[in-house]
């Protein structure tokens, strides 16, 4: 049993629907229902569910953007980092790539300019880009290159946990495969734990060791990849598999 990086205990969250305009009473809607799980160092955990099932709320809670929840979230390591779905919104359009990658180091402090530069170049190479990308703006990059840059920026602070929220669903299929390969390679090299959020069961199968299925804020089934895919227990899991044509 290796070390834990994250433990989520009985997390529930409510969302107050704003109905001021229609004159109805504010409704409390539960978006997360007693979610509990833990992640070990270096594992890839898949989180599968449809839009509106609470995947994104959960990731926001883990990252600390959502303060208003019940239960406990314990981090055993440094701050987690995140890769977003939309590669067009997650890079600051008015900054060069080098600047974006350098930012986490500047914020952390303790690096000389020369060290920072070296690390930025090193990361660009690791993510399959070249050094001259440091001088480019995000608008000069393709979707796949942007996502590579996002991965690079997220890994600059060497986190132990990376949350990937649908990192490939906005990309073309062939690019998807490349980005997934990159994620897997970096995962192997750096032994990061990845919480891989997706609605695409095929992609999840390729990436993950362990999978959780989420529906209406609840984790309805979890298990190893083979358990989920080849002997699903919950009706919803079966429905998902069927819909994906598996």
């Amino acid at each position: 049993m290796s070390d834990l990086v994250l433990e989520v205990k009985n997390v529930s969250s409510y969302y107050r629907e704003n109905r001021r305009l229609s004159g109805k009473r504010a409704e409390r809607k539960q978006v997360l229902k007693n979610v509990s799980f833990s992640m070990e160092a270096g594992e890839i955990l898949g989180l599968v569910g449809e839009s509106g099932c609470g995947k994104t709320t959960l990731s926001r809670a883990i990252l600390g953007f959502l303060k208003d929840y019940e239960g406990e979230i314990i981090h055993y390591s440094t701050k987690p980092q995140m890769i977003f779905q939309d590669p067009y919104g997650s890079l600051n359009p008015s900054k060069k790539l080098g600047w974006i990658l350098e930012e986490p180091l500047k914020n952390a402090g303790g690096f000389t300019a020369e060290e920072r530069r070296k690390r930025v170049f090193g990361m660009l190479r690791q993510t399959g880009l070249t050094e001259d990308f440091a001088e480019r703006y995000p608008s000069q990059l393709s979707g796949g290159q942007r996502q590579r840059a996002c991965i690079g920026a997220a890994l600059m602070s060497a986190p132990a946990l990376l949350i990937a929220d649908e990192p490939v669903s906005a990309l073309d299929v062939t690019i998807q495969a490349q980005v997934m390969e990159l994620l897997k390679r970096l995962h192997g090299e750096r032994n990061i734990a990845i919480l891989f959020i997706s609605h695409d069961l095929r992609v999840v199968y390729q990436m993950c060791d362990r999978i959780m299925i989420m529906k209406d804020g609840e984790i309805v089934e979890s298990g190893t990849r083979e358990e989920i895919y080849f002997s699903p227990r919950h009706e919803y899991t079966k429905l998902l598999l069927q819909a994906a044509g598996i």
Partner: protein
Amino acid sequence: MKWLERSGIRAPKSPGSNETLRKSHPTALRLRQSTLCRTPRGLADRIVRAVMLLEVKNLNIEFHDHDRPERAVCGLNLRMEAGEIVGIVGESGSGKSMSALAIAGLLSRKDITKQGEILFEGKDILNCSRSELRKLQGDDIAMIFQEPETSLNPLKKVGWQVEEALRLHTDLTKEGRRARALEVLRKAELQDAEKVYDSYPHHLSGGMRQRVMIAAAMACRPKLLIADEPTTALDVTIQAQIVKLLKKIREEQHTAVLFISHDLSLIRQLCERVLVMQAGHLIEEGAVEEVFRSPGQEYTKKLIGAIPEIPAACETRGKFER
């Protein structure tokens, strides 16, 4: 080879591929004509073979908004019979959406030039007048788009939007239109059609909106339905339902469907014939299963290979008892 030249298909631009293409092309592009004649059961006698529903001949589309013209589509050839489901697959920038827009007659910007012919039941869509085009659009040719969020007018009730095509193309009375709208909404498998009829788009979920779009497109019983990535923005379970719905509608109403997607596995579920596009060129065409079994082009192989593979589930299912 002669066929190749006639159809204007050119080799992809990558270096060295000219040679490889010349070698591999005759087999790759051998028109699997047999599939053209394979129509759904019971339909064959109703179809007059002589007139193709849609015939695209050597279509070229160029952009002129920059100094150097940019080619979006180069020499596309496409034939569709009535009631056929054809899929176009390709990545973003391959020209598939541009071709779809051109076929729907929606590509009339000043900075775009189109060459070639798009014959819909023998009528050239590229060269007919606006009023003629308007008569076709919504009546014989309908289209649904990727974003169910933006393709419905947020300020109009669903019923009004479904009726719009009827208002323009038929002499139905108000009651007649309402009855027809409710009928198509029900056909699109929307529960509680009356309630949907009277609601605004923001009351509906993404899947329901896409169903409404399909209902609106089907209101006038079009002969050709163009679906441009209709399921990309939806969840998997909803995706499967929409695909099923399209299949059902096509079987009931003999509407031909041109299904555009970047997802080969979806196309495999829905279509009989598939066209693979890359960088504006049509590089492969054939029956779906045949293309899957023996892809003729490197690019097609890459596309198929990019579908994450899962070992045949039915064989393995049950082996992992818990």
